[in-house]
């Protein structure tokens, strides 16, 4: 079951910073559902995944499922 991280209304880079913190506290394989309506989130999440080695799946325009891989 994914933990929800609601970042609606928060502007860049807050959603990514909060996600990074959440992932740091999580166990390997744990899923986080990030909800963010900031226009920079989608582009930054793919760069974040590339840099950190974690996995990102786009569920909908504002919903992203992240799996901790590293």
């Amino acid at each position: 079951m994914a933990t929800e991280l609601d970042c609606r209304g928060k502007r860049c880079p807050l959603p990514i910073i909060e996600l990074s913190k959440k992932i740091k506290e999580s166990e390997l394989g744990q899923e986080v559902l990030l909800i963010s309506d900031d226009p920079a989130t989608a582009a930054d999440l793919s760069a974040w995944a590339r840099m950190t080695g974690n996995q990102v799946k786009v569920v909908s325009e504002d919903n992203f499922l992240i799996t901790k891989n590293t």
Partner: protein
Amino acid sequence: MITAGKYEGQHPLHPKARQILLDAFDQGWADPAQISAQGRQAQGLLLQARESIATSLGLQVGEIEFWGEPELISPVAIWGAPGFGSAPFIYGATERSEIIGMRAKSKQSFEISVDPDGAIDLELLTQTLQPNSIVAIQSANIETGVIQDVKAIAKAVVAQNAHLHIDATASGARFVKPSFWSTLHFDARAWNGPSGVGVFALKNGARWSNPLPHTKPTRAPNSFSIPLALAAAGALEHWIADEATNSARLKSLIERIRNHVKQTISDVDIAGNAQSTLPNIISLSFLNVSSEQLVAALEVEGFSVASGSACVASALEPSHVLKAMGLLTHGNMRINLNHDVQDGEITKLLALLPGIISKLRED
């Protein structure tokens, strides 16, 4: 001085150009179209400036026009290309927004993606090209400094006998023109000239017509300041005279920044590779850092840098250039070095940067 890279015009005016400007305001203010002594004098000065700029840029005098609204050159150059509106309009994903905006005026437009280093996908461009296509490509990007392979692009365009507009505003006099092109766009700010002077070039024999309203056959609006045009020509001559030494020095400083940042700071995206970027520009994006705070922290230390991140750029959307390259759009800073930058300034910046990033990441 490390100046902001958002506008190339933030570099100071060359001192010699400033003197020319002041002298020219005294001498060449008259309208060159008027048949008076002062009109003739203005015409003479203008011809000199035109000849000087054409020579400096490797163009023929008859191929260039001065424009008082440099930002309008690319959109108008594209608009006046044969068949624009119905012909396929092809542009790179990292072009200036006013060029990308021209897609709204075209019935069929195609955006060509770039690779992670910012280079145009040549294969996609070649597949997309048709004989009547209008292609708009930048020679280099002002945000990242990424240089396009205009020679290869021109080869693909000429094979289809299509129209090629090149935005050379970021490269300025560093632009090496390919053997084929149709229209070019330069901005005098690229060579420490004054703002408010652009150079539009139309290759001899290329088809193009002025799309702006006019009753007499005119090639360009002809609304520009003669003193600014003279100062632009003077600045260019001086810029070129010092270019080889300056570019080599700036390139080594940018290399120092690139290597130091890579070695001392983790989780950073550096735009483009060292081989295909302008010698004076570097764009860095730091993960989990707010650009607003980064720009402010550097400002306190006396460094003025720009950023493509949405929170600084007073726009909701992040930089389309970084996005197209798949790079991190937050935590971005752009360094655009002017000729007068001192080595010591870079040493100071590099000594401070790792600590600033680390502190911002902790907050």
